Each structure stands twice: as structure tokens, then as C-alpha cells.
């Protein structure tokens, strides 16, 4: 893991959904600044509505912020940058009418990878996530965990320097999350990708991340960044260690009040369409 190099440069990014002064407008993200180091895995964690997904969308170029700039590799982000950034969503974003293999290849087609490389890259990334034998299955035939593995394979095959993951395990059960988390840690230990990972789960954040950015309640900004000093790949034994518990407790302390604040001020669902 190379040190020092800033891969993503976030300066004073804030966002508002709807026009200022309108009844429907909501300030989703307060001015936030952040430097993400090349090769690190940074977790964004915070209460519902704090703006962590909004920030991720801004970094990924899927959303133009109301104010502030993001620079990736020195270039300002003005839209999706498929050659530099790959995105994994919480909702299943695999095309249901294509097999797993076809889905992976389609991603490469969109990015512009030459056709001759498709087969080899697809095979490699499917093997990396452990789905090699399910290449010809349709997403509808796979479990939730397998579908997210496929999404990960698709993202890996794009060979981008940066991977953005928006609560990728959010829709999965606890046990699947645990397995996938461990496998992800092993997989990412061997790459030099910069990863930004949004999650709700404290344990997941501590287990996977090099640094954890804790958000305050809406309109959110980064309250504190916690370092997790533990080499990758992280062993299952880490989860039961004292260091883990301390870090997790620290996160809990930081988050608890923010979560309460977020829940008590939550507007009735449906009025504000903005992303969290």
C-alpha cells in the first residue's frame, strides 16, 4: 500500500436537494472536505440521512454538488469517470436479462475495453469472487450474496483505480455479510485500489477499513476520522480482539447521539426524495 498519494480530493462539498427556500428542499450534506489516500479503504458511516451516500455519488460523478469540488487523480470530477471509478450499488444493479458472464462483459463494453480482452478479464474476476461456476446463471437464479459478488466481479474487471461501494451488503443477512466481508478483505489485500465504502454497520466498518469517517446527523459533515491500524488481509480473529472492541466502542460513542438526533428529527417518509 503506497502512502501519501492523494487519490481523491474533496473540497467543501455540500449538497441541497430542491431549491433553497422551497418547502421540499433539504440540505443533505453540509460542507465537507476530505483527502482520500491512494490504496486505502475508507469507510463512511453515519446515521440515516447524514449525506454519506450523497457524498459518494458526488465523488463518483453521478451527482453534481450544490457547492464544492472533487478531484480524482488531479482531474476535476464532472460526470461519471468509468476509466477511473467503478461503482457498486446496494440495490441489485445486474441486468436481469443477461447471465453473470454477460453482465461482466457488458460493463467492459461500456467502458471501452477491447473485445479480445473481455473473455480473459471476465474469467479472472469471476474466479476472484468465487463465481466461476455460475458464469452462465441469470441473476434471478442467484442468492443476494452471489449477486453482489457478481456486481463486484463486474467492477473489478473494469480495472479502475477507485472503487466506490454504497452499502453493498445492506440488503443481505448477517451471516452472508460476515462471509462476504472476510472474502472482500482477502481480495482487496491483493489489489492497490482505493476504496470508499458506505455502511451502517459498525462492525463492518472496523473490520474492513483503514480509516473510518464518522458523519454527524443531517445536514451531515465529517465529525471525526478514526484510524484502524491493522494489516490487511484481516483475520476473523481480529473481530474478537480487544483492539476491535475498543474501536467499535469508540464508533458507537461517536454515533449514538447522532443516530438519536437523526431519528427524532426525521420527517415523515416520502416527502424528501433526496438520497441519504
Amino acid at each position, binding site marked *: 500500500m503506497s502512502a501519501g498519494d492523494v487519490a481523491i480530493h474533496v473540497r467543501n462539498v455540500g449538497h441541497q436537494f430542491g431549491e433553497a427556500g422551497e418547502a421540499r428542499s433539504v440540505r443533505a450534506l453540509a460542507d465537507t472536505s476530505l483527502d482520500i489516500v491512494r490504496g486505502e479503504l475508507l469507510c463512511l458511516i453515519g446515521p440515516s440521512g447524514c449525506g454519506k451516500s450523497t457524498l459518494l455519488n458526488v465523488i463518483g460523478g*453521478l451527482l453534481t454538488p450544490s457547492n464544492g469540488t472533487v478531484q480524482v487523480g488531479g482531474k476535476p470530477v464532472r460526470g461519471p469517470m468509468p*476509466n477511473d471509478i467503478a461503482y457498486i450499488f446496494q440495490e441489485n*444493479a445486474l441486468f436481469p436479462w443477461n447471465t453473470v458472464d454477460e453482465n461482466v462483459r457488458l460493463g467492459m463494453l*461500456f467502458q*471501452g475495453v477491447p473485445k479480445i480482452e473481455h473473455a480473459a478479464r471476465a474469467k479472472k474476476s469471476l474466479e476472484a469472487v468465487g463465481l466461476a461456476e455460475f458464469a452462465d446463471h441469470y441473476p434471478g437464479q442467484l442468492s443476494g450474496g452471489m449477486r453482489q459478488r457478481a456486481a463486484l466481479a463486474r467492477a473489478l474487471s473494469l480495472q479502475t483505480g477507485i472503487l466506490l461501494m454504497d452499502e453493498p451488503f445492506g440488503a443481505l443477512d448477517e451471516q452472508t455479510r460476515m462471509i462476504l466481508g472476510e472474502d472482500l478483505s482477502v481480495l482487496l489485500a491483493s489489489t492497490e485500489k482505493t476504496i470508499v465504502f458506505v455502511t451502517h454497520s459498525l462492525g463492518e466498518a472496523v473490520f474492513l477499513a483503514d480509516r473510518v469517517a464518522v458523519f454527524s446527523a443531517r445536514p451531515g459533515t465529517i465529525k471525526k476520522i478514526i484510524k484502524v491500524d491493522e494489516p490487511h488481509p484481516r483475520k476473523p480473529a481480529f473481530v474478537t480482539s480487544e483492539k476491535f472492541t475498543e474501536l467499535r466502542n469508540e464508533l458507537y460513542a461517536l454515533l449514538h447521539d447522532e443516530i438519536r438526533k437523526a431519528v427524532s428529527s426525521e420527517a415523515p417518509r416520502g416527502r424528501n426524495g433526496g438520497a441519504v
Partner: protein
Amino acid sequence: MTSVQSSRVQTAGLRGNERTPATARRFLLRHPGVVRLGVVVLLLLVWEIAARVVVDPMFISPPSRVFTSLGTMLGTDGVPNALRLTFFELAVAFAIAVTIGLALGLAIGLPPFARRSFMPIVLLVYGMPQITILPLFILAFGIGPASKIAFGVTHGVFPVVVTVVAGVQNLKPILLTSARSMGASRWQILRWVIFPHMIPSFFAGMRLGMGGVLLGVLLAELYVSTAGIGHFTTMFTETFQPNKLFGLIAMLAAMAIVLNEIVRRAENRFSRWR
């Protein structure tokens, strides 16, 4: 152990006697299709008896006589040609309706403004009783196959348009976002995301469109026809030959069933991922 053995011995004889009705009942329970067939056979029997005993043979023909006169009916001069002509009209009307329906559906469904503006008009026209303008179609296109085809097209095109528009619309936004994030161009999104998503709806539309085409063509045929089946239904009615009339209608019903089945199978085949 002994008691079980002895009870088994005891019941063996009983079960041997009861085996036939018990297994028969179980067989029927597991195969409702057989019972359904039985119901149909029963209805045919009722028809047979009623036609022979109760009703005047001028008006209703028993199924047996319909069956035996199939040969003569088909041998009647012009009937096979009429059937072929009807099939031709159906096929052409279907092809035209599907093509126009797909084109219109995409034109209206893809741009959101077009959909908001024109869909209400489409639905309004779809809801109107087209049968009232059938005489107009005949005046415009003549009494030949052209009017039948045209009437079939106007009936078949609407379900296709409506289903294609619906199919384009209910695409999960996350799929579009995902494609965008991977750098897909507008054309690539159309070809690899929107189009495959729309295909099952399109095939469902084709199934409904076939129903519409059948209705339109047959209505037009029954209204006026010089060489088509409408001509012969009129003839058989006026000459009080119910056996031939039943036979002809049965053939047409069979044609309708076959065509519907073909489209239904195509729909299933292309909707496998759903």
C-alpha cells in the same frame, strides 16, 4: 412388531378389494386435466343428445354429424381457399400491426414528453368502439382482403403500443445509473439496457395484439365477404346447414387457438429471465 405385521396381513385383503377406486380417485385428484377433458366430453354428449332428441335439426347439429360432414364441408367449392385467405389476412394484419405498434410504442414511450402528451390520446382512441366504423372501412378499402387486413391492424396495433410503452417505462432507474457509471453511451443504453428490458413486454403485447387482429379480421369477414369465410358462414346459415356451419366455425376456432398458442409460446421463450 407382531401387531404391525398382523395388521398388515389383515388389511392386505381389504386393500386388495378397495385398490381400484382408491387409486383411481388419487389419479384423478392429481390430474385435473383428465377431469377437465371429462367435462368437455360430457358437454359434447349433452350437445349430442340435445341435438338429436330435443332440437330441430335445422338449427343445431349434433357433434357427430358435424364431424362426419367435415369432409364435405371442406370439399365445398371455395372453402379451403376461404380458409387460406383468412389465414393470409390474419398473418399480414399481424405483421403490420406489430411493426407499426413497435415503432409507435418506441416513439411515444422513449421520450418522456411524447409519452405524457400522446399516451392519453392513444388510450382514448383505444377505448372507442371501433366496430362502429367498420362500414367506413369497407367503403374505403373495398370488400376484398384489404379492408379485413386494415380492420385487423387497427384492432391489433393498440395493445402492442400500450405494452411497449409500459415496457419501456418501468425500467429500474438503478440499471440506468449503473450503465451510466460504467460509461455507457446513449446508444449503448438503448441497445443493451432499454431494448432487452422491453422485449418481454413486447411479446406480451404481441399476444394481445394477436387477439385484437383475430377479432378485427373476423368481424370484417363476418360483415361482408365475397370469397372469404364470411361468405360461407352466410351461405351455410341461409341454407340451414348447421353441420357445415359448425364445422367451418370449428376450423376457424382451431386456427385461432393455434395462432394464439404460437404467440404464447414465443412469449414464454423470450421472457425466461423474468
